[in-house]
């Protein structure tokens, strides 16, 4: 009698446990789906930001390119590197460079 009763209660407990597990599983799945959706949104956001970052990096490279820097130097500072080099004779170029520093001669 006692054993049969125990068995009966165990069966009820097992049924409840299964129900709880099923509900838990459903909730876990729906949580996971929600998280996945959130991750997808974040992922898309990361991709957007990465793409924007790549565009910015390209723009920085363009602005820092030697041609752009030289053009800016010419426009704002009046420094004309290439043109001077192309136009001046060798002797004139040498004269424009600083004089060599005196070095000690070893006997």
């Amino acid at each position, binding site marked *: 009698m006692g054993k049969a009763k125990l068995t009966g209660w165990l069966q*009820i407990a097992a049924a409840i446990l299964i129900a709880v597990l099923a509900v838990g599983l459903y909730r876990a799945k729906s949580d996971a789906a929600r998280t996945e959706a959130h991750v997808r949104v974040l992922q898309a956001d990361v991709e957007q930001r990465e793409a924007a970052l790549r565009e910015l990096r390209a723009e920085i490279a363009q602005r820092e*390119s*030697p041609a752009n820097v030289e053009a800016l130097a010419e426009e704002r500072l009046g420094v004309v590197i290439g043109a001077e080099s192309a136009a001046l004779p060798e002797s004139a170029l040498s004269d424009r460079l600083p004089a060599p520093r005196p070095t000690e001669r070893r006997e």
Partner: protein
Amino acid sequence: MKPFGPTGAFAPERSFTGAAEAAPARNRVRLLAIGIFAVLLLLAGRAVQLAFSGDPLSERSRSAAVQVLPRADIVDRNGVLLATTVRAYALTATPSRVWDAPSIAASLASVFPELDRETVVRRLTDTSRQLVYLRRGLTPEERDRVHELGLAGIGFETEHHRDYPQGTLAAHTLGFTDVDLNALSGVERGLDAQIRAGGEAGRPVRLSLDVRVQYALEEELAAAARAAGASGGSAILIDGRTGETLALASWPTFDPNEAGRATENMRRDRVAGDLHELGSTIKPFTIAMALEEELTTSGELFDLSVPFDIDGSVIEDHEPVRGLASLRDILAHSSNIGAARLALRLGGARQRSYFERLGLTAPASLELGRNQAPLAPAARSRRDVAGLGFGYGLAATQATLAGAYTVFTNNGARVEPTLLARAPDAAIERTPVFSPEVTRQLMVYLRGVVTNGTGRAADVPGLAVAGKTGTAEKLGATSAYDESRNFSSFAGVFPSNDPRYVIVLALDDTGEGAAGGMVAAPAVARTLRRIAPMLGLRVEPRAPTR
């Protein structure tokens, strides 16, 4: 409540018969219990597995952190961006949703004036297609401007676009792709597989170029080519010890961002794609071959005052060398007669063998879309052998010549030029050609060319430049050499006291009298003045005169 237990007054009796009836029920209960236990065991197992396998979401997000691109970035040796893949948009239309095609075409023309209105109308009314492309590679700004027009049936598709932020810099080396990012030329094509793999792994492709050196070389080449009235120019600078190409320039140039607008002449890579007879820049090799084979010595003197007759063909020097001349004089005064005589002592077979080891009979190994193979027919007569001795009868690219000159930076061994940055501890393959003694002797002669010979204009105080000028007459319309059309060049090595770098600069179609020493050598000197500090070399200027 007794859910499953026996009930009633005749329980024992019933229990006997009921026991027999209850047996299958008990079995069912047992089966059910076993089933539940199995399910619970499975769930427990899965829970344990999840507990020890980490968070699957984090794994996914980690892989998503590396964005897959169709093509990787290309950077220079210092990490400066040379080519990248950015977001772009394709302008599309759904013809079935377009009501007033001419009006839409007119609106689009206000943003893209270059769009052909008739073509746009034709595409917009092509209802046999679900989607038509009107324009590719739109920038985000252009997309916004079209979006503001609020045109029905007009949409956008996100795509990738190849961008070259340095503009014309290293255009021929980088090459370009088509609108679908298929490689068409340059390293884009030469390293296509590596660039695609790098895009998937989020890893850039690092070239050996240095944008600062590249810019200086390009600017000086352009200035020299314009000043000399040349139709084209090419220049290459190599770290001769490692074979790494620091700069590679062709003139005229183009913007790879708008490659379609450039002419074929502008897009032509003249360093690795154009063949020219090398002229006198090959003479150092002829002398080195003769020394290596012990067919002459540094003490031998030659009488070069009279023209040299080879089976009826007369070889003359542009400026005859008076008196007796040493090997050093042959090189310093670029004597064709001296080089021809040494070449004949060597013979065609040995000469060919040296040319092969110098890499002058095979295309350069630069990682470009195209490396033009040299025109190097075997010498069939003594005249051919003599001509090859002073640079006629062998047409190669300037990249090939620069590769051959690396023998002077490696104690007589040649290194293949490359466009990829090498790791500091990378193994470098060297092909022995000359002995270290012969190479050192040649370096003294090459330095003499710059201090006392035809290459004086290439001298840069403090940098100890060594090198050889070259002036090859070009073939005219009648297949005869035309004195008024020259290919003028200078091939140099510096610093000569510790040779490391190789520079070759050439100008195509320079006029009569525009020898390599007059037009190419000064351009090399100007370039070296600018780039020496970038290479960690010191230029000693002359003291100002009082």
